[in-house]
């Protein structure tokens, strides 16, 4: 069915950061956007300086930067001044242990205040901050730390013992492991005493705008995960897009529910809100319906950035669960991670009095590219229109050259490179990086179309990557973990539609001779995969096959498995050599 457009009132438009997107687009330049940051004396740019010092120097140090809600009900507040002192302490701890400019600090921990000190302290010394999702199993963690040549790691004692201790010695670059809290396992340093003893000032290191600041890992269809490199200059885009797409202003009470282990939780859960002088709400706990509703109400959250899976979980609970709450402080709701279904956009409007504004971006783009902004009428199900400073198109290749698609025609979503938060490299993977660009376009790997009004609509992935609960999962990584099990000869992994998670991971395995399929073995394989990969990445369902569909060159045709699973046309199967049995 078609969904009615949600129109915005004159008052909505007037109060928006961009009352008229088209006017703003015509007037916009990144050079001008850059003037909103102060830069370092003597040239250069540093994200942490822009996020903290700039506000403190401007006399806003007492403003609250972060309200932390502990899982046991405790609350801790940090002003901009206080966060600056703690980030400086962390910077001193790092330098005391020989970590310096260009070194890479990995984080793998829950949302505790030290994570925020670490991110900002790391950037302050010119080191590179690389967050990992704490629910990853040991295999993905190890691979990412190898590729990223980790110099330092901050984590918890529990995560360290369960997932890291066994292979820590195999990462030769790793010089320092900091453990949050008072006690540390052997060979690690407890952070509490170090922070207590460290001086609370630290002169920011003179980083250049093009110096590496962040690495975000993202999955590939084949091969190893890719380390997406971002530089300090990205702050220009983080600041501007936070204003335009999320309505962040000084003092805005803002809750980004994404974990900093993923790119959204860093770009828009740490950097962008601080650049804009907002007050961040950080909840240590995982999704819990009542807790979330109470948090929105009690903290008077004004801007809320969340994800489709969470919204769909709220929808499952029904409107009744929300009815005894006062959400009148909410001014702007946004969603990212995967396309937000129209039902959810409309549901937001009915329950919170505001629709969810879907937006689109990726680890590679570093910041929001396409969005439904506050002043725009919303077509439920659409990701919106390109932000000022962003040139986007739908393109397709007719043999040799890329061409723009007509309205309504499906093609690949492409962006004109040149915005400040564009990735600068895939770490050590020049060929894969080069493959992302063609005829002057960055190709996103997402299939989409644009309608006659200029709204963009997501259609699907151009490759085999799986989007589950907003996380991009590379089938190859899952398949190789399965093959490590002695019973498995071959594996193919696809994403199947799921009404809550978007997609769930399903695996097809071929067993080694002499191993018989059984329920016990199915459980054993799922357990094996969960232990290595963690629950977010491991398959939720495994089925046994005698053979998998393969091309002549031996490539598994995941696309075919998926089409059959969904009862869709099988498409071109001229390259099929051996079929599924």
């Amino acid at each position, binding site marked *: 069915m078609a969904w009615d457009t949600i129109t915005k009132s004159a008052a909505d438009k007037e109060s928006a950061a961009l009352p008229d997107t088209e006017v703003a687009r015509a007037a916009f330049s990144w050079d001008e956007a850059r003037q909103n940051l102060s830069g370092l004396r003597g040239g250069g740019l540093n994200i942490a300086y822009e996020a903290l010092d700039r506000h403190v120097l401007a006399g806003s140090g007492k403003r609250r930067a972060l309200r932390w809600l502990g899982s046991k009900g405790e609350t801790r507040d940090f002003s901009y001044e206080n966060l600056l002192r703690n980030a400086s302490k962390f910077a001193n701890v790092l330098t005391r242990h020989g970590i310096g400019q260009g070194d890479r600090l990995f984080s793998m921990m829950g949302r505790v205040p030290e994570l925020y000190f670490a991110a900002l302290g790391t950037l302050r010394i010119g080191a590179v901050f690389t967050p990992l999702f704490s629910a990853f199993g040991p295999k993905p963690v190890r691979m990412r730390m190898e590729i990223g040549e980790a110099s330092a790691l901050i984590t918890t004692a529990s995560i360290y013992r369960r997932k890291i201790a066994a292979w820590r010695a195999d990462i030769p670059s790793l010089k320092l492991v900091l453990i949050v809290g008072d006690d540390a396992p052997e060979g690690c340093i407890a952070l509490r005493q170090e922070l207590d003893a460290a001086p609370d000032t630290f002169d920011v290191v003179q980083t250049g705008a093009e110096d590496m600041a962040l690495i975000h890992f993202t999955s590939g269809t084949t091969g190893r995960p890719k380390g997406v490199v971002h530089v300090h200059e990205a702050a220009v885009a983080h600041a501007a897009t936070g204003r335009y797409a999320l309505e962040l202003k000084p003092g805005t009470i803002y809750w980004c529910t994404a974990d900093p282990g993923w790119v959204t939780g860093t770009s828009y859960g740490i950097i962008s809100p601080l650049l804009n002088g907002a007050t961040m709400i950080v909840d240590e706990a995982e999704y819990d319906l009542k807790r979330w509703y109470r948090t929105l109400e009690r903290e008077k959250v004004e801007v809320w950035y969340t994800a489709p899976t969470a919204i769909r979980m709220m929808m*499952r609970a*029904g409107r009744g669960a929300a009815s005894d709450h006062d959400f009148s402080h909410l001014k702007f709701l946004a969603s990212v991670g995967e396309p937000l279904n129209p039902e959810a956009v409309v549901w937001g409007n009915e329950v919170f009095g505001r629709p969810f504004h879907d937006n689109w971006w990726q680890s590679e783009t570093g910041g929001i590219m396409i969005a439904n902004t506050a002043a725009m009428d919303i077509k439920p199900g659409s990701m919106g229109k390109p932000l000022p400073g962003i040139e986007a198109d739908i393109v397709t290749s007719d043999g040799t050259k890329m061409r723009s698609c007509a309205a309504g025609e499906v093609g690949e979503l492409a962006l004109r490179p040149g915005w400040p938060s564009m990735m600068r490299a895939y770490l050590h993977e020049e060929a894969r990086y080069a493959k992302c660009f063609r005829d002057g376009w960055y190709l996103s790997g997402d299939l989409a179309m644009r309608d006659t009004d200029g709204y963009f609509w997501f259609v699907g992935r151009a490759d085999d990557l799986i989007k*589950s609960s907003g996380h991009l999962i590379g089938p190859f990584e899952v398949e190789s973990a399965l093959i490590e099990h002695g019973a498995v000869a071959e594996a193919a992994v696809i994403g199947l539609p799921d009404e809550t998670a978007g997609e769930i991971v399903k695996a097809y395995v071929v067993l080694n001779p002499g191993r018989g399929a059984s329920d016990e073995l199915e459980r054993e394989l799922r357990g094996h995969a969960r232990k290595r990969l963690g629950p977010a990445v491991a398959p939720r369902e495994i089925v046994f096959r005698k053979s998998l569909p393969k091309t002549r060159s031996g490539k598994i045709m995941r696309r075919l498995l998926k089409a059959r699973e969904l009862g869709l046309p099988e498409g071109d199967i001229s390259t099929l050599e051996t079929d599924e049995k």
Partner: protein
Amino acid sequence: MTKDEIRTAFLEELTQIAPDIIPATVAGDDHLMDDLDLDSMDILNLVTAVHKRLGVSVPEIDYPRLETPDSAVAYLAAKLSG
């Protein structure tokens, strides 16, 4: 149904969803997400499995009551007798 039977059923469903967990090592106060590494999709699947197995439907608002095996057994026992 006795509490022991409920606990056995709960642990069986739990380890069916997360076969990496060894039932004998699960403590009554282990937190399903923090200690046993379940994620929110696992919890949804667990609620569905418990419903199928015990006939107890757990509303979304009560999910936190299933935080640990002990609290889950107490909650399910109360529901079954009520």
